[in-house]
């Protein structure tokens, strides 16, 4: 039996957060909310989205012995006047980010360009390390990401977030 894994998102103040399990979407917008409606909460040109604080949650290992090599990336183009930043990095990973109240100010945690193709190796850690792995249920480090725009940004980009891991039987 394969492991049971879901993507979760944490929102709200760091003193009273809420964790949404098994999110339906990773829509980015002008509010700190999971599964948000981007039409109701658009990112104004020149502004940033609220940060997303997401994680990979292993609910049950099933008959697998290990889960490792967590890789996240985006498929598709944002357009010329928007950038997508993250804390995920193959070469410069800063370790486990402790949850902070998501902000629409320029993130000081999401500072690397989000990969637009699958990274060659892990870029999100488990237990603070890119070589970390799950051998029982648990949560990955937080994936923090944010979209930043200029005033020339145009509406209409749709892209896809990818989350991948290796599962050892």
């Amino acid at each position, binding site marked *: 039996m394969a492991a049971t894994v879901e993507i979760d998102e944490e929102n709200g103040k760091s003193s009273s*957060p*809420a*964790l*949404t399990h*098994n999110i339906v979407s990773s829509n980015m917008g002008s509010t700190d909310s999971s599964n948000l409606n981007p039409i109701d909460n658009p990112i104004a040109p020149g502004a940033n989205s609220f940060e997303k604080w997401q994680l990979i949650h292993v609910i049950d290992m099933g008959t697998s012995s290990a889960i490792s090599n967590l890789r996240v990336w985006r498929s598709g183009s944002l357009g010329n006047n928007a950038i997508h930043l993250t804390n995920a990095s193959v070469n410069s990973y800063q370790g486990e980010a402790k949850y902070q109240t998501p902000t629409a100010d320029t993130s000081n945690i999401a500072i690397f360009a989000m990969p637009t193709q699958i990274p060659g190796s892990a870029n999100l850690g488990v237990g603070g390390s890119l070589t970390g792995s799950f051998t029982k249920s648990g949560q990955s480090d937080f994936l923090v990401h944010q979209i930043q725009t200029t005033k020339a940004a145009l509406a209409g980009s749709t892209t896809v977030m990818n989350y991948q891991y290796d599962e050892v039987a």
Partner: protein
Amino acid sequence: MMEHICGQCGKEFDSEPAYLKHSCQTSGVAPHETEFSPPKPKVASTLEKTIFTAVQLARAKKQYNA
């Protein structure tokens, strides 16, 4: 205390175990089906038993003939 929300059905829970055990109306399953059944020992089918018996008989016959 952290609030836990099911992203599929929107129900809110006081704890992660409560979330994991709930029966989600949208997905139709509990996030964590605790009833994991280990693999059952293989039971030979009637055909396998027949073949096994035939092989045993053939071997016994061969020994007798030898």
